[in-house]
C-alpha cells in the first residue's frame, strides 16, 4: 500500500490564510457580538433613525437596532450556509463516489441524475421547493442541499474514476476488502483537499442563494437573518426614505464573507494542486460569487 494521508495542516497559501483570518473574525463577531447588542427584534428607538452614538448603525423601519440585527442575522445565515454546504458536499461525495466506483448501470443512472440536476437552473428550482416547505432554516438547508449537491458529485466521480485504477486500490480489492471499505479508507482520504475546497465553494453558493430566497419572501419573515433583513429593508421603504443604513451593513457582511471564502477557496485550490499525493485533483473553476455549473458530460470535458 503506497498511499499516504497528509495530516491536517494550516493552508500554506497566503490567500487562504488571509481568507481564514477574515472568516474567523466574522465568525467571532457573529458568535459573541449578539451578547453585547441585546434583543435584535425589540423596538428600541424611533423607526429609520440614522446612525448615532446610541445606535451605531441606526434603526430599521420597525425601530430595531441595525447593528444588533446584522450581528444576529450573521449567526443564522452563516450557520445555514455552512450546514447546507456540508450537506451538499456529503451528499455529492457519496453519489459521486458510488457512481465512480460502482460503474455500469449504477454509474449511468447516478450520472444522469447528476447532470439533470446540474442543467436545471438553481434559483427557480429552489423557489419551487421553498414555496412548498414550511418557512425556516431547516427548510432552507433542505432546499440548498437538494439543489446544490450535483457539482460535488461530478467532481468526486471524476476523481474516483482516476483513483480506482491506482495500484493500492487494486491491491486492496484483490486482498478482499469490501467495496465500502475501499471507498472510505483507500480512496476518500485522498480527496480531502478537494472536498475542503468543495465545502468552501458550496458555502459561497449557499450564501447567495439563501439571501436571494429570503429576499423574495421565501424565508421565515419573523426570523432575523441577513436575507430577511434585506427583505424588510425593501418592504419598509429603505430606498424611498433614503435609509441606506438599513441595507448597507447586511450587504457588506455578505460580501465580506463571500470575499473571505473566495480567498480561502483560491488558496485551498492552489494548495490541493501542489500537495496532492498522486493525481492533481480536478479543482473548482475560478472563484465567482456563485460557482459555475458545468453542464457538459464528462467525456467531452
Amino acid at each position: 500500500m503506497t498511499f499516504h494521508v497528509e495530516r491536517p495542516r494550516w493552508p500554506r497559501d497566503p490567500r487562504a490564510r488571509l481568507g481564514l483570518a477574515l472568516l474567523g473574525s466574522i465568525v467571532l463577531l457573529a458568535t459573541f457580538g449578539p451578547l453585547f447588542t441585546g434583543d435584535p427584534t425589540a423596538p428600541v428607538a424611533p423607526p429609520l433613525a440614522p446612525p448615532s452614538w446610541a445606535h451605531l448603525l441606526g434603526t430599521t423601519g420597525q425601530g430595531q437596532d441595525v447593528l444588533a440585527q446584522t450581528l444576529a442575522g450573521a449567526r443564522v445565515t452563516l450557520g445555514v450556509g455552512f450546514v447546507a454546504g456540508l450537506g451538499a458536499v456529503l451528499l455529492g461525495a457519496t453519489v459521486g463516489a458510488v457512481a465512480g466506483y460502482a460503474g455500469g448501470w449504477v454509474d449511468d443512472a447516478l450520472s444522469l441524475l447528476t447532470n439533470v440536476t446540474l442543467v436545471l437552473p438553481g434559483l427557480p428550482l429552489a423557489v419551487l421547493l421553498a414555496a412548498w416547505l414550511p418557512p425556516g432554516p431547516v427548510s432552507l438547508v433542505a432546499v440548498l442541499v437538494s439543489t446544490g449537491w450535483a457539482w460535488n458529485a461530478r467532481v468526486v466521480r471524476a476523481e474516483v474514476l482516476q483513483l480506482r485504477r491506482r495500484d493500492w486500490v487494486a491491491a486492496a480489492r484483490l486482498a478482499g476488502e469490501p467495496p465500502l471499505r475501499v471507498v472510505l479508507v483507500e480512496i476518500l482520504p485522498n480527496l480531502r483537499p478537494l472536498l475542503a475546497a468543495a465545502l468552501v465553494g458550496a458555502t459561497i453558493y449557499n450564501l447567495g442563494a439563501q439571501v436571494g430566497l429570503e429576499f423574495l419572501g421565501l424565508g421565515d419573515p419573523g426570523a432575523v437573518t441577513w436575507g430577511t433583513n434585506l427583505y424588510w429593508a425593501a418592504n419598509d421603504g429603505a430606498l424611498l426614505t433614503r435609509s441606506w443604513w438599513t441595507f448597507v451593513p447586511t450587504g457588506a457582511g455578505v460580501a465580506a464573507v463571500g470575499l473571505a471564502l473566495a480567498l480561502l477557496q483560491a488558496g485551498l485550490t492552489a494548495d490541493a494542486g501542489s500537495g496532492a499525493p498522486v493525481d492533481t485533483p480536478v479543482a473548482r473553476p475560478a472563484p465567482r460569487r456563485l460557482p459555475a455549473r458545468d453542464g457538459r458530460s464528462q467525456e467531452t470535458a
Partner: protein
Amino acid sequence: MSALAWLARRLGLYAVAAWAALTLGFALPRMVPGDPAAALLARLQGKAGPEAIAALRAALGVSDAPLVEQYGAYLLALTRGDLGVSVSRFPTPVAELIGGALGWTLLLAGVSVAISFVLGSALGLAAAWRGGVLDTVVGPALTLLGAFPYFWLAMGALHVFGFGLGWFPLRHAWDTSVAPAPTLEFGWGVVRHAALPALTLVGASVGGWMLGMRTSARSILATDQVLLARARGLPTARVVSAYVLRNAVLPHLTGFGMALGFVVSGALLTEVVFSYPGEGWLLVQAVRAQDYPLLQGLVLAITLAVLAANALVDVLTLLVDPRTRAA
C-alpha cells in the same frame, strides 16, 4: 463520438431535465407533508370566488381522481400551453401573465448578458495580453464587485443614482406619461428605464467573464503557435484575433451556457428591486399573494427557457468549433 451523437445526447439530457421539472411541479404539491393546499384553501375561503377556489383546487391537486389520471391531464394541459388560472389576478390565465412579462425579462437579461459577455471577454483578453493596471486593479476590483449579491448592488445603485442623484427613473419599464406606441419618445423611455438595472447586472457579472477569458487566453498565449506568429512579425491585431481570440473564446462559450442560469437568477432578483415588470417581479408577486398556480407556471417557464438557451449554445458550439465536429 460523432458530433451528431454528442448533440443528440445533450438534447436528450435537456429533455430529461425538462421532464423532471414538469414532474416536480406536479408532484411537490401532492407530496408535501401537512397538506398546505388545504390550509391555503381554508385561508382563501370567502376571499376568493368559487371559480377561483375550483381553479386552485385543480392546480394544487386537491382532487379525487387517481394520480395517473391527474398526471395525464396535467401533461395534456401543458402541451396546450395551459398553465392554469392565476389566483391573485383571477381569472387571468397564468400563461397570459407570463407571456406579458417575458418580453421585459428577455430585453433586460438578454442585453445585460450580451454586454457583460462581450465587455468581460474583451477586458480578459486585454488583461492576458497586456497585464498592467487591467490585471492588477480592474480585475480584482470587478471580482470584488461580484462578491456582492446582485440585488443588493441594485438597491445601492437605485439609492445613489435613482433616489439620490435623480439620474435614472425609479421603477417600471416605460414612461407612463407617454402613450405606449412605437415612437422615438416611448423607446427612449424604455431605454432610460432599463439602463440602471442593466448596468448593475453588467457590473455584477462582468468580473466572472473577465476572469474566465483571462485564464483561457493566458493558456493560449503560452502556446508555440502564438510565439511563432509573433516571431514571424504578424501585426498584433492579427495575432490576437486569428490566433488567440479564436481559440480562447471556445471554452468561454461553453461557460456561457453554464453561467446563464445564474445570470437569469440574478436578473430576476434585480427586477424585484426596480419593480421592472418582468418574470422576477411577477415571481415576487406570486410569492407574496401565495398564488401557487402562477408560481409554478413561472418556475416552469424560466426553467424551460434556460434549458432551451443551453441547447442553443450547444448547437452554436458545434457550428463554431470544428474540433467538436471532427472528434
